[in-house]
């Protein structure tokens, strides 16, 4: 059976089983399903690399096509390239970790775990879609789970945040819908990206459709000024919800920007590249400075996500192979790192019941494991060599620096400089929360991470370290597919 089909079917079956089994057992079913997905993703990776090693250079592998709505030429068309495979791996890893972290969920556990799996299903379906309507279907699938996860299991101003998030993301999708339909009508009726990619739409059409698609997906990946759902959404969500939102959901946007906006509309990308770079740089710098001012550890990570996702958009805006590869690497790195970050914050919060930096202190002595995780992931966030953040950001910078022109250079320098600010806020947070004197007597009674929290942390930490130490295989796999994109985007220049 085709691996991609299995990737879709397993969550569907698991969801159906979860409806009928005892509420206590749902989490086991869902965890098993997530582990199966993870194994499948590794198997997919192995087979994918073998195919590539054997010299199979077709742009998409493991393709399957089933007709869905013949009248409109809508197909269930799945296929993967190096970018999709790495995103699938990220999704599977974060899913397992998120389920493990929320192992002790007691409030409506059946619904909670089903929502998590529905989110995963949406993300996996989206990453393998090669038909715009299919992609849109899977993108929209996650609206309800995201909304309810925050509105029901969240904390703080949860209803406000959930509504804001759902409406902004829906507004993004509605732009995507209009863009998709325009593409359909300009391309003699096709939603298939292999067909659309080979079309040569005229410049005016591309310039019309590109903003719709790019802004639509941009909302998902916190494109400035549409980032305002990010801080509230991330910080109100339950731990697993934040891990999903920042780890996977924002990546849907970045992936969509590359796959469905930049590649389908190269002339549009080029026309708007200055604007993309400008907005990305603003997001990077503004995000970093905004983080400096935060007092809530969850807000710190949420704002820093805006800054980090700016690198993804910067890489896309720079359009060359290295920058695009960097953008994808940054998506993976940020996904792993931020999921772990939110996971660690969730573990801290569930023990001390406050997220205010000023009330925390000396936690490393009490909970050495959680503390170490927090510090390691912090170092990854500020770009310490040997961890994934360094690899990704460095690649983006190198790509960006290759681009000629004062504007590009200035943008690159500003983006680089923001790393310093990152170091300031990360080190500040780590110092205040983990080191120093113990602020509160009752902290002494707290316990360190339980087995499920440890395994979730180890999983993501290993991924970060492996990606930091051995990045070449991943970078090569991705750059194999970003090379033709860059050629397409840059040759139009002349």
């Amino acid at each position: 059976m085709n691996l991609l089909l299995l990737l879709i079917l397993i969550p569907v079956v698991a969801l159906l089983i979860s409806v009928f089994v005892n509420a206590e057992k749902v989490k086991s079913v869902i965890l098993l399903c997530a582990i199966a997905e993870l194994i499948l993703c590794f198997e997919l990776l192995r087979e994918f690399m073998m195919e590539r090693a054997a010299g199979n250079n077709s742009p998409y592998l493991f393709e399957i096509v089933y007709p869905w709505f013949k009248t409109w030429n809508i197909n269930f068309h799945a296929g993967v390239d190096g970018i999709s495979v790495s995103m699938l791996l990220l999704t599977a890893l974060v899913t397992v970790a998120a389920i493990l972290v929320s192992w002790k969920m007691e409030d409506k556990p059946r619904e909670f775990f089903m929502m998590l799996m529905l989110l995963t299903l949406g993300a996996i379906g989206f990453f393998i879609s090669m038909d715009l309507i299919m992609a849109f279907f899977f993108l929209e699938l996650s609206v309800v789970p995201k909304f309810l996860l925050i509105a029901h299991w969240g904390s703080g101003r949860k209803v406000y945040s959930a509504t804001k998030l759902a409406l902004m993301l829906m507004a993004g999708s509605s732009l995507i819908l209009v863009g998709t339909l325009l593409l359909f009508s300009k391309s003699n009726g096709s939603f298939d990206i292999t067909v659309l990619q080979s079309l040569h739409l005229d410049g005016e059409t591309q310039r019309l459709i590109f903003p719709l698609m790019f802004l639509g997906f941009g909302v998902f990946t916190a494109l400035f000024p549409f980032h305002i759902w990010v801080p509230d959404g991330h910080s109100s969500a339950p731990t697993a919800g934040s891990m999903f939102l920042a780890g996977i959901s924002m990546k849907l946007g970045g992936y969509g920007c590359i796959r469905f906006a930049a590649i389908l509309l190269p002339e549009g990308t080029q026309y708007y590249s200055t604007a993309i770079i400008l907005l990305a740089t603003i997001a990077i710098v503004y995000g970093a400075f905004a983080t400096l001012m935060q007092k809530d550890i969850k807000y710190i990570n949420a704002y820093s996500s805006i800054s980090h996702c700016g690198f993804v958009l910067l890489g896309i805006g720079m359009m060359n192979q290295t920058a695009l590869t960097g953008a994808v690497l940054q998506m993976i790195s940020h996904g792993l790192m931020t999921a772990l970050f939110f996971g660690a914050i969730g573990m801290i919060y569930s023990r001390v019941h406050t997220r205010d930096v000023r009330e925390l202190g000396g936690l490393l002595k009490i909970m050495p494991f959680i503390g170490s995780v927090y510090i390691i992931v912090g170092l990854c966030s500020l770009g310490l060599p040997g961890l994934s953040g360094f690899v990704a950001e460095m690649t983006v910078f190198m790509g960006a620096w290759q681009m000629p022109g004062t504007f590009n250079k200035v943008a690159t320098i500003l983006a680089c400089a923001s790393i310093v600010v990152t170091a300031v806020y990360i080190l500040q947070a780590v110092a205040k929360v983990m080191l120093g004197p113990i602020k509160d007597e009752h902290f002494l009674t707290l316990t360190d991470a339980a087995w499920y929290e440890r395994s979730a942390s180890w999983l993501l930490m290993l991924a970060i370290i492996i990606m930091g130490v051995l990045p070449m295989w991943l970078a090569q796999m991705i750059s194999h597919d970003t090379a033709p994109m860059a050629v397409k985007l840059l040759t139009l220049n002349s």
Partner: protein
Amino acid sequence: MNISDWLPLRFEIALAVFILLQLVIKIFDLVRNNETWLRLNIALTFLIVLLGFTSNDSGSPFGGMFVSTSFIIIEKTILAFATMLVLMQSYNWLKHHQHAPEFFMLLLTALFGMFLILSANNILLFYLGLEMATIPVAALANFDLDKQRSSEAGMKMILSSAFSSGMLLFGISIFYGITGTLTISSWQELLRPGGLEVLALIFIMAGFGFKISLVPFHLWTADVYEGSPVSITAFLSVVSKGAVSFALARFLFSGVIMMQEVWIEILFLLSIVTMTVGNLFAIRQTNIKRFLAFSTVAQAGYILLGLAGDPVNAPTSVVYFILVYMFSNLAALGVVEAVSFATGKENLDDYKGLYNSNKKLAIVLMLALFSLAGIPPTAGFFGKLFLFTSGIHSASLVWLLFASLNLVVSLYYYMRLVRMMFSEKNEQPLASIQSPMLSRIALIICSVGILFTGIFGGLYDYLHQLAK
């Protein structure tokens, strides 16, 4: 005429026989028990649904006054099916009603009128059908005999429909004056955009606008929906609206196709106003029936977007959407009916915590709301999607953007209700509701429809084949 000439009329003949049969049963007082009456009527409507699956032969008896094609047969089958579901859901309410037999006769007469609208190729026959479809429903809106609200609803309904019929007739008379014929299909060659033609078209569109409650002709909708018994609200919002939408599609594409550039503009204006006003007003409602009334107003705006397509895809997408919308709205109103009958509560606030007290009803209502909001994997997603894909044929970018941003507004209020049911606590939680078997079956049919009509793609392709 031999037998086979009568075959295209089989729906109408069967329905007329059923209505008269009931009259006879009533006169001789053969059935005294309301439940038996109800079962009998469900069986009869089911027979009509089955008729839709017999031979699909088309024809036009009576010198072309009456047309039947396989596409029209499907439309009639959908309406009959919806009527059957409405009857199944009204079990509780009708069980002790003193005038149940009249209820069934009026309901079936209205359905008969709708069948005439769909098949009429003569504008007078069309008008006759339209009146026959409206006046009985006005009487039905008044069927909660001891409630003042219900009489008010009946009165509003009859006045507004009389007014709209007047507008429609005025437009029709101008068209008749221009073309000298009452046959709709022969208007095609005779009507070209011109001052008088446009004036007449505007009047006719206003007439249609009243019947499917487009803004600014929607003012009766919320009051009538709120005052009527829930079954009649369901019938009005699904069957009546569906029938008139089908008729509008046929009128636009067979009667006045040559004036397309004019009516596209009219549709554009009506559509964006309808969607926006419907959605914005829905946000402010506190009564669930009024809430659903405004949501159906907003849905009508999307139907108009679908009509901006080509002559094959526009009717197909509208029929598909109505089918999906039938499942969604009947599911929602079925739950409202169950809650309202058991507790008498109809406010949105009463639905807080429904997920904790009545899990199954809450899940059905949530599915219905997801489908109305157009969220995958429910059928509503595909229904709306195909209206959009159909509309891309001639809709402007502004129209598409308006329509898609309206999806965001509607998401807000649908999700709000979902959240209230799912996570809020109610100080006076509803008691656990036991609904009768028939209503439960109807809700299950609706839920299955919501979940599966969309994701299994063959249905749309089948309709498309028929529409060609």
